[in-house]
């Protein structure tokens, strides 16, 4: 009884609507495809982190007598590669470098590309023209070609591959950021903020960022799968990770000679690249749908 009267007497509380991201997570949690994709991605990340505990063998341990065993060989569940190394262990360890190379360039490019694009989009006019035409020079090259050319110029190695992938993605993200910002800048609430005397940095932080980061973020997540494939491609060409490190693209390259002897084993790294990139893509699609407020 006292509880009820206290409730009635209490000052009416301000009703607060759940925020935008709350709604996004709620909608995302109702999308089975995106959830499954997210689970697989999380599982892959867990496998990469826990690789030393999960891998049955040392991924670098070679054996002359156990070369190219087929899938299902007792003790070697996924067979062995052309140097007799256990495929399961190498795929597990390979997840580490492959995920690093696939994922790391995207957030770096996201930060740099968004900054460039938002400044260009908000400033407009001659600043926009200068920035965006410079970006277009990079954008004119096909991304694979640009990544290969940059990696080739910088020399092989993990860091150089990451740098070149980042540079490849910056123009793409900058273009998306610029076009989204240009749209938002024309809206009346930006004019209203200008009319209330706010300066450009304040308007960008309060009014522009919250409305453009979502779409740019969705685009960036879709780039992770591209980054995975490009990174594998660089390793395949000998421009990324150096042997004997395990990386899926590199494994694909070294097993290429065995494709007539043991095609299923040779295809395994490719399957991993495919599954990982498609999961990132499906999750990104789900995110895009969940962020569409109009529904």
């Amino acid at each position, binding site marked *: 009884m006292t509880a009820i009267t206290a409730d009635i007497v209490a000052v009416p509380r301000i009703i607060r609507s759940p925020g*935008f991201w709350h709604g996004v997570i709620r909608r995302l949690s109702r999308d089975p495809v995106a959830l499954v994709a997210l689970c697989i991605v999380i599982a892959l990340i867990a496998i990469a982190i826990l690789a030393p505990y999960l891998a049955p063998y040392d991924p670098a341990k070679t054996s002359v007598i156990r070369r190219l065993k087929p899938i299902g060989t007792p003790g070697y569940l996924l067979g062995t590669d052309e140097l007799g190394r256990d495929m399961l262990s190498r795929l597990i360890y390979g997840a580490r470098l492959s995920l690093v190379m696939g994922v790391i360039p995207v957030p770096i490019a996201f930060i740099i590309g968004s900054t460039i694009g938002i400044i260009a989009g908000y400033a407009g006019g001659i600043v926009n023209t200068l920035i965006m035409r410079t970006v277009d020079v990079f954008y004119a090259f096909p991304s694979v070609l640009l990544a290969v050319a940059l990696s080739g110029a910088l020399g092989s190695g993990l860091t150089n591959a990451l740098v070149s992938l980042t540079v490849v993605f910056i123009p793409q993200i900058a273009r998306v950021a610029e076009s989204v910002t240009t749209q938002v800048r024309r*809206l*009346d*609430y930006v004019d209203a903020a200008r009319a209330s005397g706010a300066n450009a940095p304040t308007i960008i932080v*309060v009014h522009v960022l919250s409305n453009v980061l979502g779409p740019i973020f969705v685009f960036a997540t879709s780039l992770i799968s591209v980054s995975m494939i490009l990174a594998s491609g660089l390793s395949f060409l000998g421009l990324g990770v150096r042997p004997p490190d395990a990386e899926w693209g590199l494994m694909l390259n070294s097993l290429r000679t065995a494709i007539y002897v043991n095609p299923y084993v040779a295809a395994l790294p490719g399957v991993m690249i495919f599954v990982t990139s498609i999961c990132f893509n499906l999750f990104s699609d789900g995110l895009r749908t969940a962020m569409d407020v109009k529904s």
Partner: protein
Amino acid sequence: MTDYLHRSMGDLDPRDRGGPAQPLVSVQGLVKHFPVKSSGLFQPRKVVRAVDSINFEILKGETLGVVGESGCGKSTTARLLMQLVKPDKGEVLFDGETVGGAISLGDYRRQVQMVFQDSYASLNPRLTIEESVSFGPRVHGVPAQTAIARAHDLLHRVGLEPNRFAGRYPHELSGGQRQRVNIARALALEPRLVILDEAVSALDKSVEAQVLNLLLDLKRDFGLTYLFISHDLNVVRFMCDRVMVMYLGKVAEIGSRDAIFERTKHPYSAALLASMPSMDPQARALEPPLVGDPPSPIDPPSGCRFHTRCKFAEDICAQIVPPLAAISQAQSAACLMSMPRSGHSHAPVHGDL
């Protein structure tokens, strides 16, 4: 910080400089031309003459209505006044002081606020209502708590219970509620002039009436001056003390509401008034008073810009640009027919001022 809420009209605004006789805003020779993409490399650059040398004054405490067809420069005038676009020529005096000169842009913007037509596009969808309303004061250094409290006061004042609405997002509100939020946001900086750019045009008729009455109440309580842009002549007649008629970037006629609505001296104003739908079935016009679209503001007609559609047009109208001249104390028109000895056959022989 909230004493402005209780200021009545009799109290003198401490920011008032020139006294009641000084116009709040005086616009002198304002020009804005927007460049358009030229059709060829060696073609001369063309411009849209959106606002072409206009002069007018907004008196303290009045509501000045601005009417005209789409594309006549109403919204550009509002944005020029708001300093959202830079004028090519001309200046704006606010209470006798040059904007950007004697009065800084920052101070000016505190005193002039705007309500836009599209209630949804003018609110940031990611901010709650209280965040949107308190943004302006916080930009000007009001502490967050005070700004939020002031936002709640204002929301209450425009008829939105802060408990129910302050924490909500714009998409959860109806059009009329959103427009009330926009009005509260405009008032948060305690402006003296509020520019209402088609502020009620997108609302349902019943909601429109509520918002119009709210605007009248707020004007009285806060001692505001309004620039009221609309294409709805009935609403203008209801709201405004004086009316300015614009045509193709120029002022066709300006005067008191009664002068414009009862004895207009410009054929364009007359045509606009004739196009108002009548409630009387006998008075319904079967012929549209104005035919066709207005000419392109890129290549406006020579002389009087209205001569291509004016039924009184004579040769002289294509040659002389009629100046905006006073006809009586309360009315000025830019028409050769009301200019003594202009050469138009309808022109008066003597000035009868």
